[in-house]
């Protein structure tokens, strides 16, 4: 009896069939949002780390300050600031753009730190050796330092990227039509939590492979001490 009620509440086939298309629509939005965040965050982080390698003191201080703030600020606070506070000064961003910008900035900060640590990990002697063979600064960076640095940074960067991608769920708070938002809307229309179950299943199906991939990357790129 209890079991039947449980199934009827969380796995109601009729409600599930009705809201499946909406959840799939949400899945698509989640994927788009995640793709935007990952590409812009990692590229911007790499650019910032490269700028930092020129060691211009005032520029680097600004980068460090911005990175620290973005690492200390909860992403949801940032999303709410962009979405609810910026209209006060006449800037109106959609929920999608607010979420993208916020999580993209947070990923930029973490990626910058990781790339910078990777760049520092390449011994100074290698810089000097390549410069003395006649390579320019850019050539040294491109052919000697970056390939080694990127390899070191892959495991931490993968894990961080996965963690931040999961933050796309926060978009639901500012009405981005991603999985959680669709599931919540379904719940309030049907007065049955089955859409929420569907949403949870969608997230698990989406992220279990990603979690396994992260574990694989960690093992694959592990450096033996």
């Amino acid at each position, binding site marked *: 009896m209890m079991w039947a*009620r*449980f199934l009827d*509440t*969380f796995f109601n086939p009729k409600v599930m069939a009705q809201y499946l298309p909406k959840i799939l629509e949400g899945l698509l939005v989640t994927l788009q949002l995640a793709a935007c965040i990952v590409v812009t965050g990692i590229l911007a982080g790499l650019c910032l780390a490269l700028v930092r390698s020129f060691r211009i003191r005032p520029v680097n201080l600004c980068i460090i300050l911005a990175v*620290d*703030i973005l*690492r*200390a*600020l*909860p*992403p*949801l*606070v*940032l999303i*709410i*600031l962009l979405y*609810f*506070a910026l209209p*006060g*000064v*006449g800037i109106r961003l959609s929920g999608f753009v607010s979420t993208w910008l916020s999580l993209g900035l947070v990923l930029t900060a973490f990626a910058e*730190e*990781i790339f910078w*640590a*990777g760049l*520092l*990990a390449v011994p100074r002697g290698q810089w000097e050796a390549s410069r003395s063979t006649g390579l320019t600064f850019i050539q040294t960076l491109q052919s000697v330092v970056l390939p080694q640095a990127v390899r*070191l*940074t892959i495991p*931490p960067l993968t894990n961080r990227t996965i*963690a931040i991608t*999961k*933050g*796309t*769920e*926060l978009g*639901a*708070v500012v009405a981005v039509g991603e*999985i*959680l938002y669709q*599931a*919540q809307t379904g*719940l309030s229309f049907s007065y*049955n*939590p089955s859409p*929420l*179950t569907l*949403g*949870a299943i969608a*997230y*698990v199906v*989406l*992220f*279990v492979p*990603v*979690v*396994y991939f992260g574990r694989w990357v960690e093992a694959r790129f592990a*450096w033996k*001490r």
Partner: protein
Amino acid sequence: MATILQNFFNLEILWAALPYVLKGLAMTLLLCMAVVPLGVVGGLGVALLSTVRTPLVRWPIRMYVDFFRALPPLVLLIFLYYGMPFLGIDLPAFVAVTLGFFLNNSSYYGEIFRAGIESIPRGQTEAARSTGLTVAQALAYVVVPQATRNVVPDLISNTLEVVKLTSIASVVALPEMLFAARQAQSVTYNATPIVMAGVLYVLCLWPLVRLLSRFEHQSIVLH
């Protein structure tokens, strides 16, 4: 410039909202004091169980960890807070948040502790056992202390993420700092309270971020 000051750094509104936001900060601290120790202890338990050789214990634990690492925390929280009442289980917001964080955090902390335990050579356990320590004693006095020391940076990093994550409790109307700030914002039609909450988060967490940044550089350079 004047509009920016007026909208984001309005002193009058700052003074009016300060007591609310500080009350929210107190709730955030209380929440952290509940969820961080619970998560650490749960994680240690999960890690110890995942080293048990019986597949009957190891596999369910593995599934538990993978499931809750894949399920985003806000989804879990909304499931507990808005879904469970349909079964007649009405959880107060604080309980729902604590339970959701426990399920989520114990799997994250569990993975960290597991990596730490795996970094301790098997010979240590064998040596400890052969001196006459029981399994529990060998774990408590030999393996776990060293394992924990090896993963301190990861533990701190995860704790920082947990503290930041408590802001999602605002979605289920738990009056923590972000919730208080949003309330104040909707009453005053001014974003200053949210900016203030952001500044308070940064002030509280900055020392942790600095510390972590140092650890990260050391760990990558040591490789």
